[in-house]
């Protein structure tokens, strides 16, 4: 009974929190747009360098109308999905091999840690010669930027599973793939999510950079739309793409990762510090 009540309270306070959050965001946005407009009105910079919010809105409608924003977003997201899934596949497999063969794991993890901080833009330059200006080069950059993060996360998340779970599970008859599927993966999930989220942000950074450097006119991604806008001095278009990139980042982080993470954390009871 008591439990039900506290859960209701929690839900109630969460709803209240959502309203406050929305109000805060609206206030922040209003202030941001206000300052922007104010700076614009000071006329410190010429219009083509410092467009007003209304002018950027014009760019947005323009880019939506000629469908380059939609196409760009689609192309970029497809690349992201393909590259990131490859990263998860390769990084996950190598990470598991690292757990399975400790000698390999130890060596590989110091190697991977080194590559983790390696600037992804350097991979873009590296990729152009062997692959040329095409999707393969961009995919390569995404994978190189995020695969080591997935690898290390897989390796450390599984190694850090409390041994008692594995002992209890094997005592109950879990072995081989069943142990992996029903115990190791769920036990490693809270830490896996954090790592995958980090890998995602690496992939996202790398992708936009790669699209700017590796120009593919036939498949214009967001990075390309941005860099071609620069050639024509279309600051409004540049800002439009930046807003789009920002929005995609927020949607992925807030809606996708945060939701999954919250669900897992509440199951494990990692959120209720008061209890």
């Amino acid at each position, binding site marked *: 009974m008591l439990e039900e009540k506290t859960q209701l309270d929690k839900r109630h306070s969460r709803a209240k929190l959502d309203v406050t959050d929305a109000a805060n965001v609206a206030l922040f946005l209003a202030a941001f747009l206000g300052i922007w407009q104010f700076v614009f009105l000071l006329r410190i910079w010429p219009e083509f360098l410092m467009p007003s919010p209304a002018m950027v809105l014009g760019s947005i409608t323009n880019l939506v109308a000629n469908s380059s924003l939609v196409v760009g977003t689609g192309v970029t997201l497809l690349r992201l999905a393909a590259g990131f899934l490859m990263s998860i596949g390769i990084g996950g497999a190598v990470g598991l091999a690292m757990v399975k063969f400790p000698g390999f794991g130890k060596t590989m993890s110091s190697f991977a840690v080194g590559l983790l901080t390696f600037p992804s833009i350097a991979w873009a330059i590296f990729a152009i010669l062997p692959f040329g200006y095409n999707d393969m080069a961009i995919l390569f950059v995404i994978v190189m930027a995020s695969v080591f993060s997935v690898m290390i996360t897989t390796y450390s998340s599984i190694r850090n599973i*409390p041994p008692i779970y594995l*002992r*209890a599970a094997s*005592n*109950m008859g879990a072995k081989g793939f*069943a142990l992996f599927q029903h115990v190791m993966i*769920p036990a490693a999930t809270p830490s896996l999510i954090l790592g995958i989220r980090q890998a995602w942000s690496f992939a996202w950074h790398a992708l936009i950079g790669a699209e700017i450097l590796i120009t593919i006119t036939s498949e214009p991604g967001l990075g390309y739309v941005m860099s071609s806008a620069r050639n024509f001095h279309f600051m409004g278009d540049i800002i439009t793409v930046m807003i789009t990139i920002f929005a995609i980042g927020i949607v992925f982080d807030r809606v996708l990762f945060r939701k999954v993470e919250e669900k897992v954390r509440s199951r494990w*009871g990692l959120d209720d510090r008061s209890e």
Partner: protein
Amino acid sequence: MITAEYRQSNSMLLQVREVSKTYLYANNQKHVVLNRVSIDINDGEFVTIVGSSGCGKSTLLNIVAGLDRPDSGTILVKGKHKTSTDPGRLVIFQEGALFPWLSVLENVEFGLKLAGVPKSEQMQAAIRFIDMVQLSKFAGSYIYQLSGGMKQRVAIARALTMNPDILLMDEPFAAVDMQTREMLHNQLLQIHDETKKTILFVTHNLNEALALGTRLIVLSPRLGSIKREFSINLPRPRDVESPQITVIKRQILKELEEEFQFVRRENTVR
């Protein structure tokens, strides 16, 4: 007392045969934890093992469970050699062995899911044992929402669901407060009555051992083996302050005191 006739029979549920285990420390010092320990346990018995920490009682339990390997000696269940762990000998760990990513119901169903039992049967069995440990209201709760005592009841239900030959309990109530522990004792005795499961229960708490077991084994850290065995044929639940229990308790305390003095001597010599 358990008679010689029992020992010779092959109908024993669990036979621990001359099990030895030595740990090697970093400084190459050997520590003989178990030295040719033999215990026979009959079907339906509730055997408690008491001994100070470091006497090897948990090691013994892990070896019986197949989670740890003996250096020599064998474990037989119903006359069959056992070398690896299996759900016939389930351990109730001291704490923390429930899966936080599953609800209470899913935790209790877990073993049956592994065994490939149909979903409806999993649920039926799980609900039956969740009822038995009186946690029906919490079937949908997650582990962090439960108190320490409730968690151990879930662990017991999870083990019972798999219908093991023997329950191996490794200081399962060491981390709960005294009042809760007493309640858990009564519940465990009721379960023992109801299911007639064989239980091997390890504890350092003498009162706990006296309250629960039909047989009490004192394990000696000095010998690495059984110091003495007591048969306690008193009805349960028991009052551990009663004169009959006190008589037994005094004898056991005497045995334990000798061990304690030995350990103290050894520590001062070192």
